[in-house]
């Protein structure tokens, strides 16, 4: 199981600013280790951001996303106290779900 995500959801005016830091190696499958063997690809393929249980943003990602990915999103219609849930799923079937409260 991967490490928890860090999620910050903050109201800025009537827009909720969501910053997500995921902990993931994001191996491209192009890199070789010290023995010259190719390190198999291991990367997040999909993610979703839910506001109070309803998906507002969903994404698909490839190997070009940096290691320990950081995403910044904006959501309308949120208010302080609302629940933001973020899910991701990688190409090996690992997944993680974390929650944060809008402040």
């Amino acid at each position, binding site marked *: 199981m991967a490490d928890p995500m860090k999620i910050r959801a903050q109201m800025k005016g009537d827009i909720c600013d969501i910053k997500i830091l995921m902990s993931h190696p994001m191996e*491209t499958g192009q*890199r070789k280790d010290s023995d010259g063997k190719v390190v198999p690809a291991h990367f997040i393929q999909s993610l979703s951001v839910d506001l109070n249980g309803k*998906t*507002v943003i*969903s994404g698909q*990602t490839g190997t070009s*996303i940096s290691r320990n990915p*950081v995403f910044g999103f904006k959501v309308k219609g949120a208010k302080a106290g609302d629940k933001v849930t973020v899910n991701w799923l990688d190409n090996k079937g690992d997944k993680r779900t974390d929650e944060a409260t809008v402040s």
Partner: protein
Amino acid sequence: MDLIRRNVLRSAGTGGALAAMLAAGILKPTAVLAAEWNKNAFEAKDSAGAVKALGAANAGDNKDLSMTAPEIAENGAVVPIEVVSKIPGTTSISILVDKNPFPLSASFDFAEGGVPEVAVRLKLSQTSLVKAIAKTADGKFYTVQKEVKVTVGGCGG
């Protein structure tokens, strides 16, 4: 007369079955969304192929679609890119790095409530054009691109 009545009943029946499946959680909308990783587009080895797989070959310019990217990235492993679409009815934004082994980097869909703006950090293997493609609800595509110079590549390491 009877035939029409039967057809109406039948279509109501299938609609009802779909609703029942949704209610039972067999067809969870979010799960379906997450499962559809666009393999063709993400595994395309050149930018043109990825754009084609997205269906965005005829994307036009639009001044309401903008991208913020550094002109020179000292570290190709972490290049911050921000894409903002002010085009009304934007439903998705995709980001491509032309010269990466697999150009398509990410693709985001925005449902009601999601503002079509996204900030990501990308790996760039070498100096390359970075492209953003926005799709609107009426099926039109728009694109914007910017060159990012890389002094140290993000791959191999």
